[in-house]
């Protein structure tokens, strides 16, 4: 597989960065609310960012997006 092909596959996924780790979701679309539920994170204890902008829980992530989850208290 060429470098371009690998890049194309990765860019079709949703990337989620949390606690210094990266997760890749093979989804076309995912709501922030559903993402937090899937990661078992209480929405009262975290914020989601995309390209440096805060997202409300009703926002959708789409393939190619990178989302950063910031917790109110760092994980131990």
């Amino acid at each position, binding site marked *: 597989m060429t470098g371009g092909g690998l890049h194309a596959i990765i860019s079709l996924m949703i990337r989620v960065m949390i606690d210094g780790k990266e997760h890749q979701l093979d989804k076309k679309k995912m709501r922030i609310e559903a993402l937090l539920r899937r990661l078992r994170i*209480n*929405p*009262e*204890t*975290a*914020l989601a*960012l995309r390209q440096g*902008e*805060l*997202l*409300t*829980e*009703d*926002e959708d992530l789409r393939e190619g997006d990178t989302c950063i989850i*910031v917790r*109110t*208290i*760092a994980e*131990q």
Partner: protein
Amino acid sequence: MKCKKCGNKAVIRLRAHHISLCCEDFLSFVLNRVQQTIKRYKLFVPKERIVVAVSGGKDSLALFDILQRLGYPVEGFHLDLGIDGFSQRAREAVEAFFVEREAPLHLYSLNENIGAGVPKIASQLRRSPCSLCGLMRRYIMNRFAWEKGFSALATGHNLDDEGAALLGNVTRWQIGYLARQAPLLPAFHPRLVKKAKPLALVSEREVLAYCILRAIAYHEEQCPHAKGATSRSHKEALNLLEYYSPGSKIRFYQEFLKHQGIFPDSASQGLQECAVCGFLTTRERCQFCEVLEHYKGSPLPMRRSEAGKG
């Protein structure tokens, strides 16, 4: 989701307040919230000298930013605890923040002034670094604020901190701590300055959002000694309640404050001057001097009781 104030795209939903807000209106919301807290609990009077205890974390840096924007004449005080790596990175974050703002910052390093940091002293005295850290921080900050002529010492305790401390004090029925846990601890002796918590009604998530939106580069790392801290489980419990019943945290704290008078306070009774340093204590020698003398090899007895909270 739309901003309830202006109809623009919202960046945060605040379920406890039944609103979603855009960036600009959220930042105004936080400033108003702090201003209301200052007014309601009479934290400061106009033009008094305020020192903010800055650890480098999000709460203290956000507090400094907010008080500056509200027009209070604030200065910062950072205590370098001498915890390998962690303290250096915290100090760097604080110094960068104050350089950028050209704001006055006072630094005190345990390594430079005492010859050792918290972990080394705690290890030698065989006591918990967290209780020792609390004891030393309180002493140094109180003494610094009084000696430098400040009239108020402000700390970045947020609603989650206050809620967690309250839950801890209630589950152990610590009456003395319950009597003193409030956004304002008055100066009940001429050698003490009042202590204020202007973020007491702002949740931890709101403070985090404030820092992100203001691009405040805070020190994100958690203290290596904080692992397993009970305050963390209390915060998690309260946030679970908050999830199922939005507004629980603020109700828990504010309703407590309304009824706080039922708890008797004896903190100001029996205060005297420490025979070694002259600062306030309820005993012949203060705990800070006992720690120092014991650390340096003196056979003074150590009291093993935990440092106070709240």
